């Protein structure tokens, strides 16, 4: 994990479904930093996270890691990020351990101990051999979060990671984020509830919404 390279977005403008979601948005995230995205429903938190992951492309502006735009080297960017979205990628017929080792394996970690550590980190080691179809909403989410710990990656992108988690699990997640940041990792997360991210920055997306009468920009661009 390199420590000096900043992860930045400059002058971002994003359209979704032909509509302007946000504009003139900038962010910078140094190693060990945490950026919490807040804002009302529909303000573009999920959209920004997908931009950061490279799943979407901004209509204007660039996102860069250490000065290199994502579009120039998408493979390298993919190798360095973990994305946890609304969907949990839990297969009904695989056990928790099988699911986790597959995802660790995809990122090159074939180590059984690492998988066990990750299961323990989110207190799902007791249900490690239960198949996916029997999991409750919060258990699935915890399994999804365990991927973060199983295979290390410097950038975590978490879209409402606390959804469905009970309080004990929220505390586990806060701990995992703190350890990751202490190791020089960085985290971007969106949330509607309070999550302890000491020393982290907050980005309120409501501030970048297009002005009420500015919609002509969106029209022309579409």
């Amino acid at each position, binding site marked *: 994990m390199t420590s000096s390279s900043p992860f930045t977005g400059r002058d971002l403008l994003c359209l979704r479904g032909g509509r302007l979601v946000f504009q003139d948005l900038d962010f910078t995230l140094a190693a060990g930093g945490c950026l919490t995205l807040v804002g009302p429903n529909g303000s573009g938190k999920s959209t920004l996270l997908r931009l950061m992951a490279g799943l979407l492309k901004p*209509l*204007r502006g660039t996102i860069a890691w250490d000065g290199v735009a994502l579009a120039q080297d998408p493979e390298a960017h993919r190798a360095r990020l973990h994305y946890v979205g609304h969907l949990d990628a839990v297969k009904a017929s695989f056990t928790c351990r099988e699911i986790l080792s597959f995802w660790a394996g995809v990122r090159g970690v074939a180590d059984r101990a690492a998988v066990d550590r990750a299961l323990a980190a989110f207190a799902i080691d007791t249900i490690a051999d239960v198949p996916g179809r029997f999991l409750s909403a919060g258990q699935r989410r915890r399994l999804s979060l365990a991927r973060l710990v199983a295979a290390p990656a410097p950038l975590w992108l978490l879209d409402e990671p606390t959804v469905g988690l009970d309080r004990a699990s929220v505390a586990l997640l806060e701990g995992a984020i703190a350890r990751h940041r202490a190791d020089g990792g960085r985290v971007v997360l969106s949330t509607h509830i309070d999550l302890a991210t000491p020393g982290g920055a907050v980005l309120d997306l409501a501030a970048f919404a297009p002005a009420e009468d500015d919609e*002509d920009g969106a029209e022309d661009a579409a």
Partner: protein
Amino acid sequence: MDGFLSMGGYAAYVWSSYGAAALVLVGLLVLSLTGLRRVERTLATLEAAKPRRKREPKVGPVPTASPATETAP
């Protein structure tokens, strides 16, 4: 004239070919024209519905917004 219409005994084939061509070409033209009329009418009503909001920023943000589309990656 009769000889022209009977097409040397192949009237059915020749004239149905030309008939089909007329049908397809005129049909597409009419469909395109009515489609165009329809959207242009809805566009006109929509733009008429909110003229106040649109006029003011026309001076400012529009020039900066349209180059954005041209330099899109």
